[in-house]
Protein backbone atom coordinates (compact mmCIF):
# COMPACT_ATOMS: atom_id res chain seq x y z
CA UNK A 1 0.00 0.00 0.00
CA UNK A 2 2.80 2.36 0.82
CA UNK A 3 5.08 1.24 -1.98
CA UNK A 4 4.15 4.06 -4.33
CA UNK A 5 4.72 6.82 -1.78
CA UNK A 6 8.30 5.94 -0.97
CA UNK A 7 9.62 4.78 -4.31
CA UNK A 8 10.20 8.04 -6.14
CA UNK A 9 13.87 8.38 -5.40
CA UNK A 10 16.59 6.15 -4.12
CA UNK A 11 17.35 8.29 -1.09
CA UNK A 12 13.91 7.78 0.48
CA UNK A 13 13.41 4.96 2.96
CA UNK A 14 10.08 3.22 3.27
CA UNK A 15 8.57 2.84 6.76
CA UNK A 16 9.51 -0.83 6.59
CA UNK A 17 13.16 0.09 6.12
CA UNK A 18 13.37 -0.67 2.42
CA UNK A 19 14.77 1.27 -0.52
CA UNK A 20 12.28 0.55 -3.26
CA UNK A 21 14.38 2.02 -6.08
CA UNK A 22 17.08 -0.51 -5.30
CA UNK A 23 14.54 -3.31 -5.24
CA UNK A 24 13.17 -2.16 -8.57
CA UNK A 25 16.72 -2.26 -9.93
CA UNK A 26 16.96 -5.89 -8.80
CA UNK A 27 13.71 -6.47 -10.72
CA UNK A 28 15.46 -5.29 -13.87
CA UNK A 29 18.00 -8.05 -13.35
CA UNK A 30 15.24 -10.62 -13.05
CA UNK A 31 13.76 -9.43 -16.35
CA UNK A 32 17.02 -9.82 -18.27
CA UNK A 33 17.78 -13.05 -20.12
CA UNK A 34 19.40 -15.78 -18.10
CA UNK A 35 23.05 -16.03 -17.18
CA UNK A 36 24.59 -18.85 -15.16
CA UNK A 37 27.96 -19.57 -13.63
CA UNK A 38 29.52 -22.59 -11.99
CA UNK A 39 32.95 -23.45 -10.70
CA UNK A 40 35.22 -26.30 -9.76
CA UNK A 41 38.48 -26.05 -7.84
CA UNK A 42 40.35 -25.15 -11.01
CA UNK A 43 37.84 -23.79 -13.54
CA UNK A 44 34.87 -21.46 -13.76
CA UNK A 45 32.30 -21.59 -16.56
CA UNK A 46 29.92 -18.79 -17.50
CA UNK A 47 27.02 -19.30 -19.87
CA UNK A 48 24.14 -17.14 -20.96
CA UNK A 49 21.08 -17.12 -23.13
CA UNK A 50 21.54 -14.83 -26.11
CA UNK A 51 18.28 -14.11 -27.84
CA UNK A 52 18.35 -11.59 -30.63
CA UNK A 53 15.43 -9.14 -30.83
CA UNK A 54 14.62 -10.17 -34.35
CA UNK A 55 16.10 -12.33 -37.07
CA UNK A 56 17.57 -9.23 -38.64
CA UNK A 57 19.56 -8.05 -35.65
CA UNK A 58 22.71 -9.36 -34.02
CA UNK A 59 22.85 -10.89 -30.57
CA UNK A 60 23.56 -8.74 -27.59
CA UNK A 61 26.89 -9.38 -25.90
CA UNK A 62 26.38 -10.55 -22.35
CA UNK A 63 29.77 -12.06 -21.57
CA UNK A 64 32.83 -9.84 -21.42
CA UNK A 65 36.47 -10.59 -20.96
CA UNK A 66 37.80 -8.31 -18.25
CA UNK A 67 41.35 -9.63 -18.11
CA UNK A 68 43.16 -12.86 -18.86
CA UNK A 69 42.06 -14.18 -15.49
CA UNK A 70 38.62 -12.56 -15.05
CA UNK A 71 35.41 -12.58 -17.08
CA UNK A 72 31.88 -11.40 -16.41
CA UNK A 73 28.38 -12.40 -17.51
CA UNK A 74 25.56 -9.89 -17.09
CA UNK A 75 21.80 -9.89 -16.85
CA UNK A 76 19.58 -6.85 -16.92
CA UNK A 77 20.30 -3.49 -18.52
CA UNK A 78 23.11 -4.54 -20.81
CA UNK A 79 24.19 -0.94 -21.34
CA UNK A 80 24.89 -0.63 -17.62
CA UNK A 81 26.73 -3.95 -17.85
CA UNK A 82 28.89 -2.71 -20.67
CA UNK A 83 29.87 0.39 -18.72
CA UNK A 84 30.70 -1.64 -15.61
CA UNK A 85 32.78 -4.05 -17.71
CA UNK A 86 34.76 -1.10 -19.00
CA UNK A 87 35.34 0.01 -15.39
CA UNK A 88 36.46 -3.49 -14.44
CA UNK A 89 38.86 -3.68 -17.37
CA UNK A 90 40.29 -0.31 -16.49
CA UNK A 91 40.82 -1.36 -12.87
CA UNK A 92 42.59 -4.54 -13.96
CA UNK A 93 44.86 -2.65 -16.32
CA UNK A 94 45.76 -0.04 -13.70
CA UNK A 95 46.42 -2.66 -11.02
CA UNK A 96 48.58 -4.63 -13.46
CA UNK A 97 50.48 -1.47 -14.35
CA UNK A 98 51.21 -0.60 -10.71
CA UNK A 99 51.81 -4.05 -9.23
CA UNK A 100 52.80 -6.08 -12.34
CA UNK A 101 50.48 -8.86 -11.19
CA UNK A 102 46.86 -9.79 -11.82
CA UNK A 103 44.16 -8.09 -9.77
CA UNK A 104 42.76 -10.56 -7.21
CA UNK A 105 39.11 -11.26 -8.01
CA UNK A 106 37.93 -10.60 -4.49
CA UNK A 107 39.32 -7.06 -4.62
CA UNK A 108 37.63 -6.32 -7.92
CA UNK A 109 34.19 -7.41 -6.73
CA UNK A 110 34.50 -5.26 -3.61
CA UNK A 111 35.34 -2.25 -5.76
CA UNK A 112 32.36 -3.05 -7.98
CA UNK A 113 30.10 -3.43 -4.97
CA UNK A 114 31.26 -0.11 -3.51
CA UNK A 115 30.62 1.54 -6.87
CA UNK A 116 27.09 0.13 -6.89
CA UNK A 117 26.49 1.28 -3.31
CA UNK A 118 27.31 4.87 -4.21
CA UNK A 119 24.39 4.85 -6.61
CA UNK A 120 22.06 3.84 -3.79
CA UNK A 121 22.94 6.85 -1.69
CA UNK A 122 22.98 9.80 -4.11
CA UNK A 123 19.81 11.62 -5.01
CA UNK A 124 21.06 12.49 -8.48
CA UNK A 125 21.96 8.92 -9.41
CA UNK A 126 20.10 5.69 -10.01
CA UNK A 127 21.24 2.17 -9.15
CA UNK A 128 22.84 0.12 -11.91
CA UNK A 129 20.18 -2.14 -13.42
CA UNK A 130 22.43 -5.10 -13.99
CA UNK A 131 23.52 -8.21 -12.10
CA UNK A 132 27.04 -9.42 -12.72
CA UNK A 133 28.40 -12.93 -12.44
CA UNK A 134 32.13 -12.42 -12.05
CA UNK A 135 34.28 -15.47 -12.79
CA UNK A 136 37.95 -15.36 -12.00
CA UNK A 137 41.11 -17.18 -11.09
CA UNK A 138 43.72 -15.89 -8.70
CA UNK A 139 46.27 -17.16 -6.21
CA UNK A 140 43.53 -18.31 -3.86
CA UNK A 141 41.86 -20.44 -6.52
CA UNK A 142 38.82 -20.29 -8.80
CA UNK A 143 36.01 -17.91 -7.83
CA UNK A 144 32.48 -17.09 -8.88
CA UNK A 145 30.84 -13.98 -7.45
CA UNK A 146 27.47 -12.36 -7.94
CA UNK A 147 27.28 -8.56 -7.73
CA UNK A 148 23.83 -7.05 -7.46
CA UNK A 149 22.54 -3.49 -7.91
CA UNK A 150 22.13 -3.12 -4.15
CA UNK A 151 25.87 -3.15 -3.69
CA UNK A 152 25.90 -6.61 -2.14
CA UNK A 153 28.07 -9.38 -3.43
CA UNK A 154 28.26 -13.07 -2.68
CA UNK A 155 30.55 -15.90 -3.60
CA UNK A 156 28.93 -18.95 -5.11
CA UNK A 157 29.72 -22.50 -6.13
CA UNK A 158 27.09 -22.08 -8.84
CA UNK A 159 24.40 -19.51 -9.53
CA UNK A 160 21.89 -18.33 -12.09
CA UNK A 161 20.33 -14.91 -12.65
CA UNK A 162 17.82 -13.42 -15.04
CA UNK A 163 14.48 -14.65 -16.34
CA UNK A 164 13.59 -18.30 -15.73
CA UNK A 165 16.80 -18.66 -13.75
CA UNK A 166 14.94 -20.60 -11.05
CA UNK A 167 14.85 -23.61 -13.37
CA UNK A 168 18.62 -23.44 -13.77
CA UNK A 169 19.12 -22.89 -10.05
CA UNK A 170 17.08 -26.00 -9.28
CA UNK A 171 19.29 -27.99 -11.62
CA UNK A 172 22.45 -26.52 -10.11
CA UNK A 173 21.24 -27.15 -6.58
CA UNK A 174 20.97 -30.82 -7.45
CA UNK A 175 24.41 -31.07 -8.99
CA UNK A 176 26.57 -28.53 -7.19
CA UNK A 177 28.16 -30.91 -4.71
CA UNK A 178 30.10 -32.66 -7.42
CA UNK A 179 31.29 -29.46 -9.10
CA UNK A 180 34.51 -28.92 -7.08
CA UNK A 181 35.97 -32.13 -8.47
CA UNK A 182 34.44 -31.87 -11.95
CA UNK A 183 36.63 -31.78 -15.00
CA UNK A 184 36.56 -28.72 -17.25
CA UNK A 185 34.50 -30.47 -19.91
CA UNK A 186 31.96 -31.80 -17.41
CA UNK A 187 31.59 -28.30 -16.04
CA UNK A 188 30.86 -26.93 -19.53
CA UNK A 189 28.32 -29.69 -20.08
CA UNK A 190 26.59 -28.90 -16.80
CA UNK A 191 26.50 -25.24 -17.80
CA UNK A 192 24.79 -26.14 -21.07
CA UNK A 193 22.30 -28.36 -19.23
CA UNK A 194 21.52 -25.51 -16.87
CA UNK A 195 20.97 -23.16 -19.81
CA UNK A 196 18.72 -25.72 -21.40
CA UNK A 197 16.58 -25.72 -18.24
CA UNK A 198 15.93 -22.00 -18.63
CA UNK A 199 14.80 -22.45 -22.21
CA UNK A 200 11.78 -24.44 -20.99
CA UNK A 201 11.50 -26.78 -23.93
CA UNK A 202 12.93 -24.57 -26.65
CA UNK A 203 15.69 -26.21 -28.64
CA UNK A 204 19.18 -25.56 -27.32
CA UNK A 205 21.51 -24.54 -30.12
CA UNK A 206 24.74 -22.57 -30.17
CA UNK A 207 22.91 -19.62 -31.71
CA UNK A 208 20.93 -18.96 -28.55
CA UNK A 209 23.67 -19.37 -25.99
CA UNK A 210 27.20 -18.24 -25.26
CA UNK A 211 29.70 -20.13 -23.13
CA UNK A 212 32.99 -18.90 -21.65
CA UNK A 213 35.65 -20.68 -19.61
CA UNK A 214 38.46 -19.57 -17.29
CA UNK A 215 40.77 -22.00 -15.55
CA UNK A 216 44.23 -23.10 -14.55
CA UNK A 217 46.29 -23.02 -17.73
CA UNK A 218 43.45 -21.46 -19.72
CA UNK A 219 42.96 -17.72 -20.05
CA UNK A 220 39.41 -16.40 -20.10
CA UNK A 221 37.97 -17.19 -23.50
CA UNK A 222 34.55 -17.33 -25.07
CA UNK A 223 33.96 -20.64 -26.83
CA UNK A 224 33.19 -20.27 -30.51
CA UNK A 225 29.83 -21.34 -31.92
CA UNK A 226 31.17 -24.46 -33.61
CA UNK A 227 32.69 -25.82 -30.41
CA UNK A 228 29.50 -25.15 -28.46
CA UNK A 229 27.32 -26.74 -31.11
CA UNK A 230 29.47 -29.88 -31.22
CA UNK A 231 29.25 -30.17 -27.42
CA UNK A 232 25.48 -29.81 -27.60
CA UNK A 233 25.31 -32.40 -30.35
CA UNK A 234 27.40 -34.80 -28.27
CA UNK A 235 25.00 -34.97 -25.39
CA UNK A 236 21.86 -34.70 -27.48
CA UNK A 237 22.86 -37.50 -29.81
CA UNK A 238 23.81 -39.71 -26.90
CA UNK A 239 20.36 -38.93 -25.55
CA UNK A 240 21.86 -37.79 -22.29
CA UNK A 241 19.24 -36.21 -20.13
CA UNK A 242 20.02 -33.66 -17.46
CA UNK A 243 20.23 -36.43 -14.87
CA UNK A 244 17.11 -35.85 -12.75
CA UNK A 245 16.81 -39.45 -11.52
CA UNK A 246 20.43 -40.10 -10.76
CA UNK A 247 20.90 -37.13 -8.45
CA UNK A 248 17.60 -37.77 -6.67
CA UNK A 249 19.04 -41.13 -5.75
CA UNK A 250 22.33 -39.58 -4.66
CA UNK A 251 20.75 -37.03 -2.37
CA UNK A 252 20.29 -38.49 1.07
CA UNK A 253 19.41 -35.48 3.08
CA UNK A 254 16.91 -33.92 0.72
CA UNK A 255 17.46 -30.30 -0.19
CA UNK A 256 21.04 -29.25 -0.03
CA UNK A 257 19.95 -25.69 0.66
CA UNK A 258 20.71 -22.85 -1.63
CA UNK A 259 23.44 -22.71 -4.20
CA UNK A 260 25.70 -20.86 -1.79
CA UNK A 261 28.15 -22.91 0.23
CA UNK A 262 30.69 -20.29 1.22
CA UNK A 263 29.10 -17.11 2.43
CA UNK A 264 25.88 -15.19 2.05
CA UNK A 265 22.44 -16.54 1.55
CA UNK A 266 20.33 -17.99 -1.17
CA UNK A 267 18.95 -16.14 -4.16
CA UNK A 268 16.40 -13.40 -3.68
CA UNK A 269 12.93 -14.59 -2.81
CA UNK A 270 10.27 -12.64 -4.63
CA UNK A 271 8.46 -11.18 -1.64
CA UNK A 272 11.11 -10.73 1.04
CA UNK A 273 13.25 -7.62 1.00
CA UNK A 274 16.27 -8.57 -1.11
CA UNK A 275 18.61 -6.66 1.16
CA UNK A 276 17.93 -9.15 3.92
CA UNK A 277 20.17 -11.72 2.27
Amino acid sequence: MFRNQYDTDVTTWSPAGRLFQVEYAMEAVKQGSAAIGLRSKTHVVLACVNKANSELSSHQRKIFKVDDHIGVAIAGLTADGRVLSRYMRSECINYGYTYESPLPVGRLVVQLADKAQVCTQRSWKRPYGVGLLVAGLDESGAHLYYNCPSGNYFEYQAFAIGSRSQAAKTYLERKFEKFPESSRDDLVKDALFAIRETLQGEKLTSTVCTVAVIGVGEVFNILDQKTVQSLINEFEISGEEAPTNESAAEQSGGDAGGAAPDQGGAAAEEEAAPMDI
Partner: protein
Amino acid sequence: MPKEHANWSPYDNNGGTCVAIAGADYCVIAADTRMSTGYSILTRDYSKICKLADKSYMASSGFQADVKALQKVLSSRHLIYQHQHNKQMSCPAMAQLLSNTLYYKRFFPYYAFNVLGGLDSEGKGCVFTYDAVGSYERVGYSAQGSGATLITPFLDNQLKSPSPLLLPAKDAVTPLSEAEAVDLVKTCFSSATERDIYTGDSVEIIILNANGVRRETEQLRKD
Protein backbone atom coordinates in the same frame (compact mmCIF):
# COMPACT_ATOMS: atom_id res chain seq x y z
CA MET B 1 74.40 36.45 -11.36
CA PRO B 2 75.35 33.68 -13.85
CA LYS B 3 72.95 30.77 -13.84
CA GLU B 4 74.09 27.75 -11.82
CA HIS B 5 73.81 24.34 -13.35
CA ALA B 6 71.96 21.54 -11.60
CA ASN B 7 74.21 19.02 -9.91
CA TRP B 8 71.45 16.46 -10.14
CA SER B 9 69.98 15.12 -13.37
CA PRO B 10 66.76 13.16 -13.66
CA TYR B 11 68.35 11.24 -16.50
CA ASP B 12 71.13 8.67 -16.82
CA ASN B 13 72.44 6.91 -19.90
CA ASN B 14 72.55 3.14 -19.62
CA GLY B 15 74.15 2.74 -23.03
CA GLY B 16 73.60 -0.10 -25.47
CA THR B 17 72.73 -0.45 -29.12
CA CYS B 18 69.56 -1.48 -30.96
CA VAL B 19 69.13 -2.50 -34.58
CA ALA B 20 66.18 -3.51 -36.73
CA ILE B 21 66.06 -4.67 -40.34
CA ALA B 22 62.94 -5.15 -42.48
CA GLY B 23 62.77 -7.84 -45.15
CA ALA B 24 60.18 -8.75 -47.76
CA ASP B 25 58.45 -11.20 -45.41
CA TYR B 26 60.40 -11.00 -42.16
CA CYS B 27 61.72 -8.52 -39.64
CA VAL B 28 64.80 -8.75 -37.44
CA ILE B 29 64.99 -6.78 -34.17
CA ALA B 30 68.19 -6.95 -32.14
CA ALA B 31 69.75 -5.31 -29.10
CA ASP B 32 72.77 -5.99 -26.95
CA THR B 33 72.21 -7.00 -23.35
CA ARG B 34 74.73 -4.81 -21.55
CA MET B 35 73.42 -2.19 -19.14
CA SER B 36 75.98 0.41 -17.99
CA THR B 37 76.23 3.62 -16.00
CA GLY B 38 79.20 5.92 -16.41
CA TYR B 39 82.18 3.62 -16.95
CA SER B 40 80.70 0.74 -14.97
CA ILE B 41 78.63 -2.23 -15.98
CA LEU B 42 75.37 -2.73 -14.06
CA THR B 43 74.50 -6.07 -15.65
CA ARG B 44 75.47 -8.17 -18.65
CA ASP B 45 72.04 -9.71 -19.07
CA TYR B 46 69.35 -7.08 -19.55
CA SER B 47 66.79 -7.24 -22.35
CA LYS B 48 66.08 -4.00 -24.17
CA ILE B 49 63.47 -5.59 -26.41
CA CYS B 50 59.78 -5.56 -25.53
CA LYS B 51 56.88 -7.29 -27.23
CA LEU B 52 54.17 -4.68 -27.60
CA ALA B 53 51.85 -6.77 -29.81
CA ASP B 54 51.94 -10.03 -31.75
CA LYS B 55 53.58 -8.25 -34.66
CA SER B 56 55.30 -5.30 -32.99
CA TYR B 57 58.53 -5.47 -31.08
CA MET B 58 60.28 -2.41 -29.72
CA ALA B 59 63.98 -2.16 -28.93
CA SER B 60 65.07 0.91 -26.96
CA SER B 61 68.37 2.24 -25.75
CA GLY B 62 68.98 5.25 -23.51
CA PHE B 63 67.75 5.62 -19.94
CA GLN B 64 66.31 2.22 -19.08
CA ALA B 65 64.04 3.50 -16.30
CA ASP B 66 62.29 5.70 -18.88
CA VAL B 67 62.33 2.79 -21.34
CA LYS B 68 60.62 0.54 -18.78
CA ALA B 69 57.98 3.20 -18.07
CA LEU B 70 57.41 3.69 -21.79
CA GLN B 71 57.04 -0.07 -22.36
CA LYS B 72 54.47 -0.30 -19.53
CA VAL B 73 52.43 2.62 -20.86
CA LEU B 74 52.35 1.14 -24.37
CA SER B 75 51.44 -2.34 -23.11
CA SER B 76 48.54 -0.95 -21.11
CA ARG B 77 47.35 1.11 -24.07
CA HIS B 78 47.50 -2.02 -26.21
CA LEU B 79 45.30 -3.89 -23.72
CA ILE B 80 42.72 -1.10 -23.93
CA TYR B 81 42.87 -1.24 -27.73
CA GLN B 82 42.30 -5.00 -27.67
CA HIS B 83 39.25 -4.61 -25.41
CA GLN B 84 37.78 -1.93 -27.65
CA HIS B 85 38.56 -3.41 -31.07
CA ASN B 86 38.75 -7.13 -30.33
CA LYS B 87 42.02 -7.49 -32.22
CA GLN B 88 45.74 -6.81 -31.91
CA MET B 89 47.19 -3.46 -32.96
CA SER B 90 48.93 -3.43 -36.32
CA CYS B 91 52.58 -2.35 -36.42
CA PRO B 92 51.88 0.98 -38.18
CA ALA B 93 49.17 1.74 -35.61
CA MET B 94 51.58 0.98 -32.77
CA ALA B 95 54.14 3.19 -34.49
CA GLN B 96 51.76 6.16 -34.38
CA LEU B 97 50.85 5.41 -30.76
CA LEU B 98 54.52 5.37 -29.79
CA SER B 99 55.07 8.68 -31.51
CA ASN B 100 52.11 10.28 -29.74
CA THR B 101 53.17 8.85 -26.39
CA LEU B 102 56.66 10.28 -26.78
CA TYR B 103 55.46 13.73 -27.85
CA TYR B 104 53.01 13.79 -24.95
CA LYS B 105 56.10 14.29 -22.79
CA ARG B 106 57.67 16.83 -25.11
CA PHE B 107 58.74 19.06 -22.20
CA PHE B 108 60.12 16.29 -19.95
CA PRO B 109 60.96 13.59 -22.49
CA TYR B 110 61.38 9.87 -22.16
CA TYR B 111 65.13 9.49 -22.61
CA ALA B 112 64.57 6.56 -24.94
CA PHE B 113 65.90 5.99 -28.43
CA ASN B 114 63.55 3.52 -30.02
CA VAL B 115 63.37 1.24 -32.97
CA LEU B 116 60.03 -0.46 -33.64
CA GLY B 117 60.07 -3.58 -35.78
CA GLY B 118 57.32 -5.87 -36.99
CA LEU B 119 55.16 -7.06 -39.85
CA ASP B 120 52.58 -4.84 -41.49
CA SER B 121 49.12 -6.03 -42.47
CA GLU B 122 50.48 -7.40 -45.76
CA GLY B 123 53.08 -9.48 -43.98
CA LYS B 124 55.97 -7.32 -45.14
CA GLY B 125 58.66 -6.34 -42.68
CA CYS B 126 58.43 -2.83 -41.30
CA VAL B 127 60.83 -0.82 -39.19
CA PHE B 128 60.13 2.56 -37.63
CA THR B 129 62.85 4.70 -36.10
CA TYR B 130 62.33 7.45 -33.52
CA ASP B 131 63.99 10.27 -31.71
CA ALA B 132 63.35 10.99 -28.03
CA VAL B 133 60.30 13.19 -28.64
CA GLY B 134 58.45 11.10 -31.17
CA SER B 135 59.63 12.17 -34.59
CA TYR B 136 59.39 8.97 -36.62
CA GLU B 137 59.70 7.52 -40.05
CA ARG B 138 59.19 4.14 -41.66
CA VAL B 139 62.52 2.86 -42.94
CA GLY B 140 64.01 -0.35 -44.26
CA TYR B 141 66.55 -0.59 -41.44
CA SER B 142 67.80 1.43 -38.50
CA ALA B 143 70.22 1.50 -35.59
CA GLN B 144 69.92 3.51 -32.37
CA GLY B 145 72.05 3.89 -29.28
CA SER B 146 75.73 4.18 -28.48
CA GLY B 147 76.88 1.96 -31.37
CA ALA B 148 74.50 3.40 -33.96
CA THR B 149 77.13 5.61 -35.61
CA LEU B 150 79.36 2.55 -36.08
CA ILE B 151 76.60 0.28 -37.41
CA THR B 152 74.58 2.54 -39.71
CA PRO B 153 77.25 3.13 -42.38
CA PHE B 154 77.98 -0.60 -42.41
CA LEU B 155 74.31 -1.39 -42.98
CA ASP B 156 74.09 1.29 -45.69
CA ASN B 157 76.87 -0.56 -47.49
CA GLN B 158 75.85 -4.18 -46.93
CA LEU B 159 72.08 -4.36 -47.13
CA LYS B 160 71.83 -3.79 -50.88
CA SER B 161 68.77 -1.60 -50.28
CA PRO B 162 68.10 1.63 -52.14
CA SER B 163 69.54 4.40 -50.05
CA PRO B 164 67.05 5.67 -47.46
CA LEU B 165 68.44 9.16 -48.01
CA LEU B 166 67.10 9.38 -51.56
CA LEU B 167 64.21 11.64 -52.43
CA PRO B 168 61.50 10.65 -53.28
CA ALA B 169 61.88 8.00 -50.59
CA LYS B 170 62.17 4.55 -52.07
CA ASP B 171 61.05 1.52 -50.14
CA ALA B 172 64.28 0.52 -48.42
CA VAL B 173 63.21 -3.02 -47.50
CA THR B 174 66.21 -5.24 -48.03
CA PRO B 175 66.22 -7.90 -50.73
CA LEU B 176 68.36 -10.10 -48.49
CA SER B 177 67.07 -13.40 -47.17
CA GLU B 178 66.21 -13.88 -43.52
CA ALA B 179 69.30 -15.95 -42.79
CA GLU B 180 71.56 -13.41 -44.45
CA ALA B 181 69.99 -10.57 -42.49
CA VAL B 182 70.40 -12.36 -39.16
CA ASP B 183 74.03 -13.07 -40.01
CA LEU B 184 74.55 -9.41 -40.90
CA VAL B 185 73.09 -8.33 -37.57
CA LYS B 186 75.50 -10.59 -35.70
CA THR B 187 78.37 -9.10 -37.67
CA CYS B 188 77.16 -5.56 -36.87
CA PHE B 189 77.17 -6.24 -33.17
CA SER B 190 80.55 -7.99 -33.17
CA SER B 191 82.05 -4.98 -34.94
CA ALA B 192 80.34 -2.39 -32.74
CA THR B 193 81.45 -4.29 -29.64
CA GLU B 194 85.09 -3.87 -30.70
CA ARG B 195 85.05 -0.09 -30.59
CA ASP B 196 82.07 0.93 -28.45
CA ILE B 197 82.63 0.35 -24.75
CA TYR B 198 78.93 0.38 -24.00
CA THR B 199 78.10 -2.43 -26.40
CA GLY B 200 78.94 -6.07 -25.70
CA ASP B 201 78.26 -9.11 -23.48
CA SER B 202 75.61 -10.66 -25.74
CA VAL B 203 73.08 -9.76 -28.39
CA GLU B 204 69.41 -10.76 -28.28
CA ILE B 205 67.88 -11.20 -31.74
CA ILE B 206 64.14 -11.51 -32.44
CA ILE B 207 63.07 -12.73 -35.88
CA LEU B 208 59.43 -12.21 -36.91
CA ASN B 209 57.93 -13.89 -39.92
CA ALA B 210 54.77 -15.52 -41.20
CA ASN B 211 55.49 -18.64 -39.14
CA GLY B 212 55.71 -16.76 -35.88
CA VAL B 213 58.54 -15.46 -33.75
CA ARG B 214 61.99 -16.86 -33.04
CA ARG B 215 64.60 -15.75 -30.54
CA GLU B 216 68.39 -16.12 -30.86
CA THR B 217 71.23 -15.13 -28.57
CA GLU B 218 74.84 -14.66 -29.58
CA GLN B 219 77.70 -14.05 -27.16
CA LEU B 220 79.82 -10.94 -27.61
CA ARG B 221 83.07 -9.73 -26.10
CA LYS B 222 82.73 -8.98 -22.40
CA ASP B 223 85.42 -6.28 -22.16
